[in-house]
């Protein structure tokens, strides 16, 4: 078995079951044994009484043969090992075993010991003291019981041999019974108990093993595999959560952690990439500015002087126009790379959205695009650079219009309030019914120079958008289905900063 916890659990349960069942069975078997022995004792007591009563008359009449006959008849029964009567002196006077007749029983023998323990023999004993258990020379268990035969007026007055009245005990009836059967039964019971205990331990272990596998082993194995995958850098792996117990919750929170990590990593990767691309762009743009100054100055100078050559003038106009276009691209690049720090003021996002919509309203109407707005009422004001956010929204709206194309369509703009990791965020969504973005391109669209507009755009629009949202400590994401449309979601902290990220920075600094 792979799982050590499972093994430990089973061993512990087995040990506990073994102890509990063992003690319980032992207790039950012992008490059963005790009650059987008590029954046996009572049975023996009754038998001795019966023998005494049945031989009484023969004894009174001193008809010894009759007594012998009775003793013999009883002794024949299998359950009796010994039936004998000895007189006060210890001489066996009746016994089915004729050879024993006349032999003396030692007062120290187990049958006599109870009374003859002290110097002067006891005359009356309780039943329990009159019985004895012992193992005979052949190793068989026996129960012996003695029943004293007391002197009676009839005995002392009988004319036969007349026991003197001073004698209180005339002799002793000693019956010994075999405990073999009880012993066998007990052994059988013990075997059954052991078997049942073993069965109980086995079935409990099996159930625990099964439950452990299902409730602990499997989810823990999944978690283990998932952590290994995450450690290997795969942040897309998710555990399939099947139960809602503690481990299920652990799995869910693991999934959430991985998702959070993945998002954070993605953000970090994006901002890293943006920063390096920004530096590159700034370097290139600055280098290009100087030669561009030469081209633009000299071409515009030529254009000025080419007043009387219309053909040359037309060509030069193109050169000047296109050089000025280069100038705008470089300006855009520099704007992107500089990521001008936002000048934040308390602004109602609804008003900012309204401003953006007002600007592109006409443009959208001309393209046969219907705009539906759903503004969240009582939206708290947020600290943001209204101009930059308007720039972002116009960019998204114009992109949406381009995605919709000449056939027309719909754009949905909505605002909302969200609470993310304890930060109050305002949300704005721009959704369109346009051509959508293929999945493979969705994480590239914010990269500088990535454009799907085939020469129409500079590929900087969304990169600048990303930069602005990043500078606002916000986030921008896209979901899209090709041919059905795209939805851009922007989240901006209302206080203009992220409490959590600041705390984590603190930790880093301290570390």
């Amino acid at each position, binding site marked *: 078995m792979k799982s050590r916890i499972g093994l430990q659990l089973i061993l512990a349960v087995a040990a506990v079951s073994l102890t509990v069942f063992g003690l319980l069975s032992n207790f039950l078997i012992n008490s059963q044994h005790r009650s059987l022995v008590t029954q046996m004792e009572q049975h023996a007591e009754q038998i001795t009484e019966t023998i005494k009563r049945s031989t009484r008359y023969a004894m009174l009449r001193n008809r010894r043969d009759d007594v012998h006959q009775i003793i013999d008849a009883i002794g024949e029964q299998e359950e009796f090992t010994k039936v004998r009567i000895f007189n006060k002196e210890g001489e066996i006077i009746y016994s089915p075993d004729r050879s024993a007749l006349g032999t003396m029983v030692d007062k120290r023998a187990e049958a006599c010991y109870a009374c003859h323990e002290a110097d002067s023999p006891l005359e009356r004993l309780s039943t329990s003291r009159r019985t004895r258990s012992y193992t005979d020379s052949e190793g068989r268990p026996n129960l012996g019981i003695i029943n004293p035969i007391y002197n009676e007026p009839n005995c002392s007055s009988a004319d036969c041999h007349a026991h003197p009245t001073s004698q209180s005990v005339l002799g002793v009836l000693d019956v010994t019974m075999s405990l073999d059967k009880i012993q066998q039964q007990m052994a059988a019971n013990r075997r059954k108990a052991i078997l049942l205990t073993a069965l109980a331990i086995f079935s409990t272990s099996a159930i625990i093993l099964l439950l452990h596998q299902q409730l602990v082993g499997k989810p823990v194995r999944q978690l283990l595999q998932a952590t290994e995958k995450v450690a290997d850098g795969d942040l897309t792996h998710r555990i399939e959560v099947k139960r809602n117990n503690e481990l299920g919750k652990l799995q869910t929170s693991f999934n959430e952690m991985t998702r959070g990590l993945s998002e954070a990593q993605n953000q970090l990767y994006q901002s890293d990439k943006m920063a390096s691309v920004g530096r590159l762009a700034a370097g290139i*743009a*600055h280098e290009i*500015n*100087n*030669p*561009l*100054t*030469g*081209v*633009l*100055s*000299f*071409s*515009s*100078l030529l*254009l*000025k002087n080419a007043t009387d050559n219309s053909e040359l003038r037309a060509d030069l106009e193109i050169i*000047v126009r296109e*050089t*000025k276009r280069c*100038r705008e691209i*470089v300006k855009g690049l*520099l704007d992107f790379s*500089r990521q*001008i720090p936002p*000048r934040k*003021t308390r602004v109602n996002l609804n008003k900012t959205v309204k*401003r953006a919509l*007002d*600007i592109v309203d*006409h443009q959208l109407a001309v393209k046969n695009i219907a705009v539906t707005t759903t503004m969240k009422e009582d939206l708290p004001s947020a600290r943001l*650079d*209204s*101009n930059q956010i*308007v720039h972002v929204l116009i960019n998204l709206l114009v992109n949406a219009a381009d995605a919709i194309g000449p056939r027309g369509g719909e754009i949905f703009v909505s605002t909302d309030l969200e609470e993310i990791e304890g930060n109050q965020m305002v949300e704005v969504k721009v959704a369109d019914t346009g051509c959508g973005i293929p999945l493979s391109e969705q994480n590239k669209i914010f990269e500088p120079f990535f454009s799907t507009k085939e020469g129409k755009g500079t590929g900087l629009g969304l990169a600048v958008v990303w930069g602005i949202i990043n500078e606002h400590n916000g986030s921008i994401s896209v979901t899209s289905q090709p041919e059905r449309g795209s939805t851009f979601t922007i989240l901006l902290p209302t206080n203009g900063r992220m409490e959590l990220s600041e705390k984590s920075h603190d930790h880093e600094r301290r570390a």
Partner: protein
Amino acid sequence: MSDELDILVIEDELVVQEAADRVLRLEGLGVDRAMDSESAVDMVRRNVYKVILSDLMLPGASGFDIIELIKTARPAAQVIVITGYATLENAIKSFQLGVFDFIPKPFDFGELLGVVRRALRYHELVLAGSVPSPLQADPAQELYALGQHTWALLDPEGSATLGVAETFPNQMGEVNSVELPDIDGYTTQGRCFVRIHSADDAVYRVLAPLSGQIMALNNRVREESELLSSDPYGDGWLVRIIPENLEEELCNLTHR
């Protein structure tokens, strides 16, 4: 004092030097050139220039250091910053150092000509001691200026009117056309928002003193460009905006 020379171009990039040289010589101006800060400082100490064009990024020193030195040594010289880093911060800092204007790279013939002509005329006014003091249109209103050329007037209703100072049209030649922004557009502080084209091919770039949404344009100046000089703080206004970030942007302006 030796004879005044016209122009000094401080620029480490040869093609930019050549472009400036070519454009300005065509105007009949004498042009000296400096490739680095050392020779620039040397030339500024030896000669007196009317107008100095300077890059902000120079081998050996920051352009701001040279500008400071020029303004101390030759206060009458008008400095024009030519820069590939035309950020608001650079523009504000330049104006604080007393720079006449700045022109972002790459520029065309008309843009360079426009700003140099204005600087030369302003230089004449400075030498003549006849720089007009800015008018206060209405004492109840607040007038703020970006550099020496554009102003913003805060209206009590919360909007702001933007225009050019009287020094600006005075330095221009005959105005051919005034290029105003789109009515639904925006102005950004420190960025060009109006271009005035003169009859003699110069282009005068007007920098916005405040950022905001444009709510009204003074279309009269398109037809009657003389309003710019005759009533610069009144009928010669250019654009009315709803300012954004007013508080922060006012810090970059000078209160008149």
